[in-house]
């Protein structure tokens, strides 16, 4: 064994550069370390296979039950499937820290909490976007949905924003799951509820008024409306308001999640609730 290197190591926790690196590198490493589905043998069946059949199922059911164009349902679900990454992924990113027992190590470090927390979003936003993009590919292949370059641009923007707001509510869910015994219960519930609300399968106008009201404060609703309008030919200026609203909703959830985590850390600090599995 070699002698211990003790010449003082340059370190500056809390500097802007350190926080930036925690945000990007830390976020990337957390994704691999904590996302249960990162390897291809799981990724393909779960994030590509299952969404494929979900889209086909609702396209068939929706058109049979309502007589509407199956494309309506396919598009709705193509947007909704980004929740595979945003909801399940963010929940794992949080709950698995408890599983691996790394929470005390994180909390005892001087790392900036906002950078640590925020960095986890990016991989799941990207992932969610890609899953939805795959969903739209299916719409294009199987259901004859067509988009031109201008439409595509608007859709990409709307999808990124929607993936963000979905991950944000996933982060809130993840925080809640830290205190519950079964981490995935809430995640599953949320994903199913998105199928019911938000205009994914059932047109907003057909929902009872209280369900419409709830949908207005959930992710997906505005982003999806923007995507649908874009496919029907609307321009960015026409749907900009919807995209902005979706982003705002995501921001509210993200901020709520951040404060939730702050509160959880403080509460663990006072009442030692961190380690209970």
């Amino acid at each position: 064994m070699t002698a211990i290197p003790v010449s003082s190591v340059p370190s500056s926790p809390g500097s802007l550069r350190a926080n930036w690196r925690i945000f990007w590198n830390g976020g990337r490493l957390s994704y691999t370390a904590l996302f249960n589905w990162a390897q291809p043998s799981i990724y393909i069946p779960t994030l590509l296979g299952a969404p494929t059949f979900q889209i086909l199922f609702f396209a068939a059911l929706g058109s049979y039950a309502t007589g509407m164009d199956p494309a309506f349902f396919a598009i709705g679900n193509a947007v909704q499937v980004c929740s595979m990454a945003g909801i399940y992924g963010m929940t794992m990113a949080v709950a698995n820290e408890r599983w691996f027992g790394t929470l005390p190590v994180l909390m005892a470090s001087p790392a900036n909490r906002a950078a640590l927390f925020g960095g986890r979003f990016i991989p799941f936003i990207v992932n969610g976007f890609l899953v939805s993009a795959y969903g739209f590919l299916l719409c294009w292949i199987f259901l004859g949905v067509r988009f031109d370059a201008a439409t595509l641009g608007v859709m990409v923007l709307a999808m990124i924003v929607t993936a963000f707001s979905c991950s944000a509510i996933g982060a809130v869910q993840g925080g809640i799951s830290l205190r519950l015994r079964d981490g995935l219960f809430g995640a599953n519930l949320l994903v199913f509820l998105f199928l019911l609300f938000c205009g994914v399968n059932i047109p907003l106008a057909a929902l009872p008024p209280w369900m419409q009201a709830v949908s207005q404060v959930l992710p997906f609703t505005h982003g999806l409306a923007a995507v649908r309008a874009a496919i029907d030919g609307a321009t960015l200026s026409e749907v900009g308001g919807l995209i902005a609203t979706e982003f705002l909703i995501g921001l509210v959830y993200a901020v709520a999640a951040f404060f939730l985590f702050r509160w959880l850390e403080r509460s663990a600090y006072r009442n030692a609730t961190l380690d209970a599995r």
Partner: protein
Amino acid sequence: MGSIATFRANVHQVVRVWTFTLGIYMKSEFFVLTAGVQPVIFATIAFLLFQVGGEAAGPQTLLFAALGTGMMGVWSTTLFGGGGAIAWQRWESTLELLVAAPRRYDLTLLGQTLATTTFGFYSMIATLAWGWLLFGMPIDANFPLILPLALLVAVIGLGIMGMLLATTFVLYRHANALSNLLEYPVWIATGMLVPLALLPGWLGPISWVLLPTWAVEAIRGAAIGSEPPWLAIGMCMVLTLVYYVIARRVLVYVIDKARRDATLNLA
């Protein structure tokens, strides 16, 4: 031990494991969600979609939707509970104990998967109750005497199918991923909510060898059909036998392989 006594002992073992495992399921949050909340949410989606469709949302349609989403719940439970059974036992280190026990492991597994399916039928109760409570759906059956038979055949058939899933899934390293994958496709291919007639023709043969197709037919036929579903019930029984034979074969192979590869315990 005479063969009658052996048979009785085997039945006894299956029943004991059945009831024991059922108790465990009733306490699991995940399965309460899968068998209760998920089907109810899907039932709501189905009810509302049919309402959008307008005139077709009569009591028959509602019952159709409730039974269909109930069966979807049965399949989900069978898939996750049955398909994951061996993999889960291996992970929690109880597999070794069960295999090394003097009583036959395949009977233990059967008892467990039957419990899974039985528990899954809470989905049916949940969706029917939901439809009745919130959408005014009347609950009655056209062939009330055949219905219990159809249900029994369905439970046992799907339990055996769960056993088949359990034995085949464990060959794949990530059994959970397979469970995630096969939920929707089977809902589609067995015509639970979208009539088979409306699906592409090539799906036909695939759906005929899937037991849930006949299980749904049997239960639906007894409830809202115009004639007794004897064909469906018969096909259920035939497929049950076929699945059982295959499952036994695969199980022997899987356990032997695990004992050879030292993977009976894979934390």
